[in-house]
């Protein structure tokens, strides 16, 4: 089981490919990828804070519940955090929304 935070944008497809590589005894992989909504143009920036260490531990508790409930063979969770860096790159008066995040959670069963 892998649980990571990253402040860098990532490719969910590449993560899925890497997760599937070499698995010969797994019948299916389910994924969830969260993306930020633009809210009809009202939101241009998404800022998500993480509490390093605590955030991974809390996600891990949820992951463990899911692993037991669905009989998962493995899990990989990558959570994007940060956003202020992207905010500086964008328009001069960005709307900041601190909710949701890009996340990808492949799970095998």
């Amino acid at each position: 089981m892998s649980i990571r935070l990253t402040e860098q944008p990532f490719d969910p497809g590449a993560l899925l490919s890497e997760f599937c590589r070499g698995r010969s005894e797994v019948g299916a992989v389910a994924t969830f990828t969260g993306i930020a909504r633009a809210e009809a143009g009202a939101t241009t920036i998404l800022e998500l804070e993480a509490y390093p260490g605590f955030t991974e531990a809390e996600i891990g508790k949820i992951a463990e519940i899911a692993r037991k409930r669905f009989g998962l063979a493995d899990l990989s969770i990558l959570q994007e955090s940060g956003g202020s860096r992207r905010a500086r790159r964008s328009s001069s008066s960005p709307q900041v929304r601190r909710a949701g995040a890009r996340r990808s959670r492949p799970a095998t069963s």
Partner: protein
Amino acid sequence: MARVLLFGPLRDIAGWRERDVEAASLADLRRALSVEDAALGEALAGPGVQVALDQAIVRGDASLATASEVAFLPPMSGG
């Protein structure tokens, strides 16, 4: 002495994210922060705000004698 961490709107209200505060208990810490900044004190007591001592959630009061880090966590929202 405990290192206090604020996240999200709590940080915005306080105008700071991290600082050291002298307090013997969580209740003392709340009082100290409220005296200094009433708006922050009210926000910290708001619904859904959780407290983590050394990265473990606690409810109610707790001694800070051995705790080195106190984080106030606002409710999560969105999706």
